[in-house]
């Protein structure tokens, strides 16, 4: 029978038996089979020979004088060389105790006496072969462990039926479960996943089980005291039994921290500027294309600011490139600051963080302002950038000053692709330079002028509100039958130092757009209430004060709170206060409109609908709105006398209002004929130049005194 080869050319067999005849009989067959045979006649001799000859296998008789085989193999097993050596124990045929004990002490196999010596070499050969297989397996395991350690890749196995979970040493270390004493469960692995990635890992795995497929997921480990946070990649696949049921999951865990960091670094190098840390041209291009896609979909605007630092070259030339780099770094920080901390409007749009500051190279920068509402927003930020950049710098203890010139292009006005917008912003910057440095310029002349004009008007309005350059006029309303004063409407006026009186038609929309309507509306309400309270205090009679409310004001501020403030500041009886709302405000969302009105009414405030008939007046809704008054728009009153149609409308509105128990006020009454007709239609009140122009408080007081005198005179 051919025998399988083993490591040593002639493997050494140590044969231990106190019966020398056994040794003699075995010797021949073992030597013929290619083994070198060493003899020992008791356990002690065996240990000596073992240490001396380092055999490949030991055949050991169990019962011997001096030291028996059990004790001997126990000692051999404790030595490094003896740990894995095959030991064949020879026992008596009927001696089960010895067989059991032989295994307990570390015997590999046993043979019973009398030994068939022809078989013995085969048994020896077999044991040597399994030893070499075991060695191979051990070194293979060792190689695998080493490979896993070097690759920072571990593996795991999950028995889905029993929940048994095994991890290789490397996997255990990567996931941070090295010191866990209890049986490891799959939940322990999940528990070590960073909480923000946990859901993804769990669902990827359960999906793999469900679909009987595989999954691949990357995650970070949870931070803890003993382990640094690693980026790991887990691959797993399911194992099916013959019935196609998932029984196991096999997986690997690899440390990809270095790769992830390298990728981040590559990304940074590709998309960020090293000197300033700002996004670079490549980043800007991608962002710009993204913005183009979003804005064309949403029909929104954005602005591109192209700028460089005036006289930067001089700084570089005189102070050196290192100083130049420091300056660029500081200027970049200021640019980001200018974009971040800008006006309240963009903050309201919650888009302030979407702006991008990029460095194109040299001293050239681009600021991308995402989703601006108006051109002036871009102008305002440009102005802010100019201011911040031109503040002095301290570079290496030298004070340096630079300024910046900014060109602005707008999407969609100035182009609808990245290249055109960049080109136009660049051109605008050169125009700005021609105009003198340290400024900004829009690409479009028209937009530039418009933006500047509006921008300055806006600024001035703000100042006017702050400085109290606004004032209120009061236009009286009278009872048509008796001619008695029923109330006044407060109207805001702006006396501009250069422009003269600015029309509310010009500045109210601006105030609404810029949000200045909020402080403006507050000022008007409080001022009017205070004035009214003053008149009441002076016993000037029973009339109400009406104040116009803008839709934007409603959206942007808490009207109830504002009214409560005005009432508590002025001390005015809320019953004297009348709010004039446009029907468009109320009809925008009828349910919400009703709620607003109910809230106001619950405070005791009167509500009237202003400009009735000009919008999409809905008669059915009118019935449901809890209002007190309707004001017929002056456009109907104007031609009332000559236009049958207007006459019909006015008459109808009045009739309808009375049916709904509403008081009707006609606006813009300028002639006696109009007044007579309205009186005929039973219109309750009138307001207009026939009654009086809007008056200052002093004028109004005079007007009221005269009128009362008049009525009194007529009556008497």
């Amino acid at each position, binding site marked *: 029978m051919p025998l399988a080869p083993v490591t040593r050319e002639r493997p050494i067999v140590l044969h231990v038996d*106190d*019966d*020398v*005849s*056994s040794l*003699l*009989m075995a010797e*021949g*067959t073992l030597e*013929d089979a290619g083994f070198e045979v060493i003899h020992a006649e008791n356990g002690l001799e065996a240990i000596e020979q073992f240490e001396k000859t380092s055999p490949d296998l030991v055949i050991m008789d169990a*019962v011997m*004088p001096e030291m028996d085989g059990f004790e001997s193999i126990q000692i051999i097993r404790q030595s490094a060389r003896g740990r894995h050596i095959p030991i064949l124990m020879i026992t*008596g045929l009927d001696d089960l105790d010895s067989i059991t004990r032989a295994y307990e002490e570390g015997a590999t196999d046993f043979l019973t*006496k*009398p030994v*068939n*010596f*022809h078989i013995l070499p085969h048994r020896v050969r077999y044991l040597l072969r399994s030893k070499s297989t075991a060695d191979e397996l051990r070194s293979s395991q060792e190689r695998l462990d080493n490979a896993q350690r070097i690759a920072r890749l571990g593996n795991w196995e999950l028995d889905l039926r029993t929940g048994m979970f095994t991890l290789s040493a490397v996997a255990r270390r990567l996931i941070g479960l090295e010191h866990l004493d209890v049986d490891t469960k799959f939940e322990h692995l999940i528990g070590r996943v960073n909480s923000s990635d946990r859901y993804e890992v769990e669902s990827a795995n359960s999906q793999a089980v469900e679909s009987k497929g595989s999954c691949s997921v990357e995650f970070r480990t949870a931070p803890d005291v003993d382990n640094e946070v690693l980026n790991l990649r887990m691959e797993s696949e399911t194992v099916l039994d013959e019935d196609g049921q998932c029984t196991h999951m096999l997986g690997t865990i690899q440390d990809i921290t270095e790769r992830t960091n390298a990728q981040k670094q590559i990304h940074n190098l590709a998309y960020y500027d090293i000197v300033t840390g700002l996004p670079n041209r490549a980043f800007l291009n991608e962002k710009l294309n993204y913005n183009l896609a979003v804005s064309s979909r949403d029909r929104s605007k954005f602005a591109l600011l192209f700028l460089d630092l005036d006289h930067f070259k001089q700084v570089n030339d005189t102070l050196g490139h290192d100083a130049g780099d420091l300056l660029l770094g500081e200027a970049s920080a200021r640019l980001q600051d200018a974009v971040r901390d800008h006006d309240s409007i963009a903050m309201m749009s919650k888009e302030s963080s979407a702006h991008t500051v990029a460095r194109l190279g040299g001293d050239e920068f681009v600021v991308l302002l995402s989703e601006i509402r108006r051109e002036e927003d871009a102008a305002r930020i440009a102005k802010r950038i100019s201011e911040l950049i031109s503040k002095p710098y301290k570079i290496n203890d030298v004070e340096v000053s630079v300024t910046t010139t900014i060109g602005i292009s707008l999407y969609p006005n100035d182009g609808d692709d990245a290249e055109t917008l960049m080109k136009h912003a660049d051109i605008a910057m050169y125009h700005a330079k021609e105009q003198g440095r340290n400024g900004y310029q829009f690409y479009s002349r028209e937009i530039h002028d418009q933006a500047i004009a509006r921008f300055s008007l806006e600024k001035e309005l703000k100042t006017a509100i702050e400085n109290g350059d606004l004032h209120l006029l009061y236009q009286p309303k009278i009872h048509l039958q008796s001619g008695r004063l029923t109330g006044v409407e407060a109207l805001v006026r702006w006396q501009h130092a250069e422009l003269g009186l600015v029309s509310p038609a010009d500045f109210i929309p601006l105030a609404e757009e810029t949000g200045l309507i909020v402080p403006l509306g507050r000022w008007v309400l409080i001022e009017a209430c205070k004035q009214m309270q003053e008149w009441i205090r002076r016993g000037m009679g029973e009339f109400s004060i009406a104040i116009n409310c803008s839709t934007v004001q409603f959206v942007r501020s808490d009207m109830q709170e504002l009214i409560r403030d005005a009432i508590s500041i002025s001390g005015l009886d809320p019953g004297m206060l009348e709010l004039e709302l446009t029907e468009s405000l109320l009809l925008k969302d009828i349910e919400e409109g009703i709620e607003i009105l109910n809230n106001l009414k619950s405070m005791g405030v009167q509500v009237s609908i202003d400009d009735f008939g000009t919008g999409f007046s809905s008669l059915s809704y009118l019935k449901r709105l809890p209002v007190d008054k309707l004001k017929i728009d002056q456009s109907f009153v104007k031609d009332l006398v000559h236009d049958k149609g207007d006459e019909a409308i006015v008459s109808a509105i009045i009739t309808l209002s009375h049916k709904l128990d509403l008081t009707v006020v006609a606006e813009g009454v300028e002639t006696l004929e109009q007044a007579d007709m309205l009186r005929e239609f039973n219109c309750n009140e009138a307001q207009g130049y026939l009654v009086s122009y809007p008056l200052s408080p002093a004028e109004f007081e005079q007007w009221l005194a005269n009128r009362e005198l008049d009525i009194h005179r007529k009556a008497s």
Partner: protein
Amino acid sequence: MTDIDINAIEAITSLQRPGKPNLLAKIIALFEQNSPALIEAIEAGVANQDLESIQTASHTLKSSAAYLGATELEDKCKKLEKFARENNFEGCQSTAEGLSECYQGSIDALQPYFDKAA
């Protein structure tokens, strides 16, 4: 005269390698050389009630006897070893009776094989 199991003898002769000293002769010689001391040890053990000596000696003698096909001697040794292990001194005592004779019988029966081999 005691019987010798011819299969055992053949098992030994089958191990004979050509050109080497005769194995059977050597084993019979070894048996003859070593056994008297073992018999003495057993008998001394019986005299001194030393069961451990009986067990060790009978175990070794049993093995040698078995290899040479000395079935009767092997059986006696087997019993002795068993009784000794079980602390059955009486059993040892009665089994040890005629041990020397049994051994001598085996030697006599092996003599012709030895002569033939040598």
